[in-house]
């Protein structure tokens, strides 16, 4: 059996793995959209989508079909090439992160498409490139609201990326590694949420800002900017931004699970079985998704100057202080666990 697998060329294995992961992730996206609409509806005392199949289960399919048949408009003032390219930048970057996220692990190693040693750096790098999708979309649309949206996006991403990275470095110091699977196995005894509670809170806040979700969705800000960077987009291209946004949401949920909630380490019960680990991973990531939706229904959007104020004057100092404290504790407390 194992010799048969060894005979299969690596590229084929990677291809099959990628296909499976993308299939699962896109399905997750579709249903996280429904999940969001349902939970938001319930929190707003509405029943939510329920006309398409039981509990509206066919809603994602109906939405996708609608998107596909919509007219794909390009404004006269737009820069056609960049305008058409931008959604793909967003989507490819959002999908790219799933190449290295380990979903569970067995004794043979983590279950992921690629096991990169500098995994967390790769994730942040790809995430940062994803900002280009939004910035270029707004710039290339050739109208004022998208431009304002993309300017906000750029400023917001840069501001919050700093605090986000700072909050994560504490975990890297504790684990002594940038490999995601090593970080997870370092949380075998204690999840990093316990020693890094400050980092965790900062990560959660900045992750919301990074994914342009409410209450930090100034990039889209319907009430002020119509639709922000995607005002001019319609049909499938708009759909791509939509997919990218939700995939980013899933990505940051996965990262939060891996870095702070012990990845596939169980809270109780047996460990070691990769399928039980996978279930734990999904439960934890789903909790974060739920939290994001909960956040969206609860909090109103921040004002732009206060967003900047909060990012630079509150989150960054606290994150830096937390990082220094962690570094000192590890240096004098006997190195990484």
């Amino acid at each position: 059996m194992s010799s048969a697998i060894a005979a299969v060329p690596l590229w084929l294995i990677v291809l099959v793995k990628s296909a499976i992961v993308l299939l699962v992730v896109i399905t997750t996206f579709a249903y996280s959209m429904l999940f969001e609409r349902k939970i938001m509806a319930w929190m707003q005392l509405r029943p939510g989508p329920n006309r398409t199949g039981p509990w509206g289960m066919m809603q994602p399919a109906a939405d996708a079909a609608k998107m596909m048949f919509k007219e794909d408009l390009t404004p006269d003032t737009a820069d056609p090439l960049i305008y058409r390219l931008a959604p793909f930048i967003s989507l490819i970057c959002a999908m790219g992160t799933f190449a290295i996220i380990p979903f569970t692990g067995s004794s043979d190693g983590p279950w992921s498409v690629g096991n990169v040693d500098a995994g967390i750096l790769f994730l942040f790098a790809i995430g940062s490139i994803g900002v280009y999708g939004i910035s270029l979309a707004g710039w290339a649309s050739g109208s004022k609201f998208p431009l304002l949206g993309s300017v906000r996006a750029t400023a917001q991403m840069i501001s919050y990326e700093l605090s986000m990275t700072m909050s994560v470095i504490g975990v890297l110091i504790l684990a002594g590694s940038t490999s995601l699977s090593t970080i997870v196995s370092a949380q075998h005894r204690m999840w990093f949420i316990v020693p890094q509670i400050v980092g965790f809170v900062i990560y959660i806040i900045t992750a919301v800002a990074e994914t342009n979700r409410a209450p930090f969705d100034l990039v889209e800000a319907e009430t002020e900017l119509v639709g922000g960077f995607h005002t001019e987009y319609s049909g499938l291209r708009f759909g791509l931004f939509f997919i990218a946004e939700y995939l980013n949401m899933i990505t940051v949920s996965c990262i939060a699970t891996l870095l702070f909630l012990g990845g596939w380490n169980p809270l109780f019960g047996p460990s070691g079985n990769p399928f039980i680990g996978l279930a734990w991973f999904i439960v934890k990531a789903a909790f974060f998704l739920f939290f994001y939706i909960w956040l969206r229904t609860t909090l109103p959007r921040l004002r732009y100057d206060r967003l900047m104020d909060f990012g630079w004057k509150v989150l960054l100092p606290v994150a830096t202080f937390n990082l220094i404290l962690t570094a000192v504790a590890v240096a004098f407390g006997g190195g990484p666990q």
Partner: protein
Amino acid sequence: MSDDRDHRKNLFNVGALFMGFFTTFQYFFQKKPTIEYPTIKKQHAPRFHGLHELRRYADGKERCIGCELCSIACPANAITVIGAENTPTDRHSPGERYAGRYEIDELRCIFCGLCEEACPTDAIVLTPRFEMADYRRGAFVYAKDRLLVPPEAGVGSAPDERPNGIPSDLGSVAEEKSTVDIATGYNATHRGTILKDQRKGLAG
């Protein structure tokens, strides 16, 4: 600067933050007040004013005697009645006259029920039926074929005799095909021709 300090104070009001989260979480489990309309119909008030109905006597004769009092009482000018004489061979109502044409423009109607009050024979009543939606304007002009209770459906009931809630025959009369040619639209109805003549008069 004071503005800055104020918002900092609110920013760190973590208690309020958790209160907000708690509130939305409570709502998550609450019973939803939505009535899922096409499948579940709301109980209406006992004397809800809906679509009109022309009633009959127990022997099958029309109650309407074509007196046009409803038309006169109507504040929205929605009712058109053209009376006709009963003959011994062609008897529609017990009196001398009956409604030869009876049209109600449901788009003009304000469902006030004054026609009901004006009627000396309790012929026109407002039923609780309210599902009248259509794509064509002409379809909202209800003529006698749709207003009159079909003979097999009984005689119709006065508002005082109606039980609460949704009657089981909701919309059964409205489903009948209209003799007014709704395809040609509003102009085909009696009211339409009157309005056309009036417009001509104004133009001339």
